[in-house]
């Protein structure tokens, strides 16, 4: 188990908890409850049971033979988080936090969502456990992801549109934090990524690190050795830290996190925090942040709503500065091309978020030797993006 963060939720210079006093007691309560659950075998067994029977874990590690042949370099494996119930890795975390909410005797859960995947996952977990559920979503995102809004409502959740600011993910988080501030005594806030105040970045990493533990075992069984390189997209960074975490001590395993370069980093319309940001505080944590010189948070752009956020998880900032993880970015166009390649070569339509990771593999694999091995995290499936992709391609459905 990792020795970071420290007691104060610090990953080196990053992390911490920058929240209004009204929330501090709730955050301390959550920290204590999670510290207990983390050591409690019964909790861990219950969590593992739901991951197996409800989510469908372990997800397969799939050798992408045709993609490997086409690129002509390293052997490419896909960690198939797209096969999780609800279509993405997000459900791992929602189940974990919903179980914790029940332990804490909270009867209501709330969540923010951008693309809708975390909202759907949380609405699903809430339905399964019988918890009241309210999801905050920017009205701009509600328009872009109308299908997921309807899915959440089918699952019994209340979906509340947020009109403030840019009407996207960051505004949804602002509103969810305000709800939590107001209803803190009955409500648990199920945050969707390794963001926010301590203990969220640590807790969500722990819940998602099942991805890497499985992948490590699977690749050892399949290849008889550790992979040479891991690749994953980084929005908040939960699927990537989930894959990477079990390999951090394996010094020979390289790791690449792929941010959204949008229309290009030089265009200013992107979400590449390491290329274009500097440390600052947003939503309770100190981390790399896209901001102007006065500390106002910049608007971001990506074709993928799940990567379209101005800050990155604090643990990523730490590994960026130590050099353990290398961060790069893929543009909207590169992601769209990778989306097509994976659909046609492998019969798998990836989420646009995951397509950013595939775009990096398309660049990286040909430069590696044929005996080398890459694992790419296919964090979600692309069903939710089909309408948007059609729109971008100018196709009327």
């Amino acid at each position, binding site marked *: 188990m990792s020795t970071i963060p420290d007691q104060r939720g610090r990953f080196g210079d990053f992390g911490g908890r920058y929240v209004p006093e009204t929330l501090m007691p709730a955050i301390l309560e959550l920290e204590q409850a999670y510290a207990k659950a983390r050591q409690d075998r019964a909790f861990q067994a219950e969590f593992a049971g739901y991951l197996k029977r409800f989510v469908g874990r372990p997800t397969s590690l799939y050798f992408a033979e045709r993609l490997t042949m086409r690129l002509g370099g390293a052997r490419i494996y896909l960690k198939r988080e797209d096969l999780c119930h609800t279509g993405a890795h997000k459900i791992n975390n929602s189940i974990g936090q919903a179980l914790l909410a029940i332990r804490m005797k909270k009867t209501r859960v709330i969540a923010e969502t951008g693309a809708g995947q975390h909202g759907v996952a949380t609405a699903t977990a809430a339905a399964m456990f019988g918890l009241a559920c309210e999801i905050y979503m920017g009205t701009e995102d509600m328009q872009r992801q109308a299908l997921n809004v309807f899915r959440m409502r089918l699952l019994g959740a209340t979906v509340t549109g947020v009109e403030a600011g840019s009407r996207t993910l960051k505004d949804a988080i602002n509103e969810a934090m305000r709800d939590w*501030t107001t209803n803190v005594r009955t409500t648990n806030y199920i945050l969707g990524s390794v963001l926010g105040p301590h203990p969220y970045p640590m807790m969500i990493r722990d819940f998602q690190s099942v991805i890497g533990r499985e992948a490590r075992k699977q690749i050892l069984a399949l290849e008889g050795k550790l992979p040479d390189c891991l690749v994953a997209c980084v929005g908040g960074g939960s699927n990537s830290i989930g894959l990477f975490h079990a390999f951090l001590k394996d010094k020979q395993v390289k790791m690449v996190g792929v941010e959204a370069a949008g229309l290009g980093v030089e265009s200013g319309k992107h979400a590449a925090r390491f290329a274009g940001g500097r440390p600052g505080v947003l939503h309770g944590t100190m981390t790399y942040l896209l901001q102007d010189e006065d500390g106002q948070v910049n608007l971001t752009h990506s074709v993928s709503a799940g990567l379209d956020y101005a800050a990155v998880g604090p643990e990523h900032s730490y590994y960026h500065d130590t050099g353990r993880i290398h961060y790069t970015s893929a543009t909207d166009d590169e992601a769209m091309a990778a989306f097509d390649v994976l659909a046609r070569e492998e019969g798998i339509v990836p989420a646009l978020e995951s397509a950013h990771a595939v775009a990096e593999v398309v660049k990286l694999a040909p430069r590696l030797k044929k005996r080398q091995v890459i694992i790419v995290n296919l964090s979600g499936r692309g069903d939710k993006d089909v309408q948007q992709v059609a729109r971008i391609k100018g196709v009327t459905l």
Partner: protein
Amino acid sequence: MINRLDATFDRLRADGRKALIAYIMAGDPSLQETETLVLELEKAGADVIELGVPFSDPIADGPVIQAAAERALRSGTSLRKILGTVASLRARTQVPLVLMAYYNTIHAMGEATFCRLAAEAGVDGLIVPDMPPEEAGPLEGPASVAGLRLIYLLAPTSTPARRTMVARRSRGFVYYVSLTGITGAKLTDVGDVRRNVEKIRSVTDVPVAVGFGIATPQDASRVAEIADGVIVGTAIVRQIGEHQQDPHMPERVGRLVRSLKSAMAGTAVPSA
């Protein structure tokens, strides 16, 4: 040098009176108007003036103050320019000025640089709504050196241990948040506020001011019976927002503040 904030609370306490603390968003609708408004608020009886520093993601604030922050940012307001406004005001008024700034705006300038420049400009105190004392390390030292009072918040949810820790570290005054919610919510349980203010008083001699949810003269009067200071923000900011185009907007705001002040005057009792 004597801090204006401390001097004001000492003077009011000696007179058995309570402080009216008025909040406006700096730069809403412009920094020039902010200067006019500060002078108007003082004339109308505000004892302390809180200047909000606009931030793009104000998680502790409700929609009225968020909208004000958006207007202020559109008018080109920045922390640096606000300090310029404070410096210019200091030629005309000695009313205590407290900045309410989200942490990132201070961090972007640099904690030590900010404290030095703020004190030079004539700022007396500082409230950082998203910075609990646990994260205040980089700011407490420079603030203390510069003579800026770092004011912490307590909430109805704060546990006894936190209440003691936060109250003892707070300088200038303790900001008691009257409700579990955001700015602009409605005050419902004055009895609860009274009990919590008494508990805070039992662990510190620093004045206790109550904010969030105080909108009407009646609210102000009820809270003035309990606390050393009454903080009114959203009700004032709403007036400013609704009458942006009205040349008499500052006088309208002045009338509101006068009504709050006179309601408080009717109920003043010496504090414990």
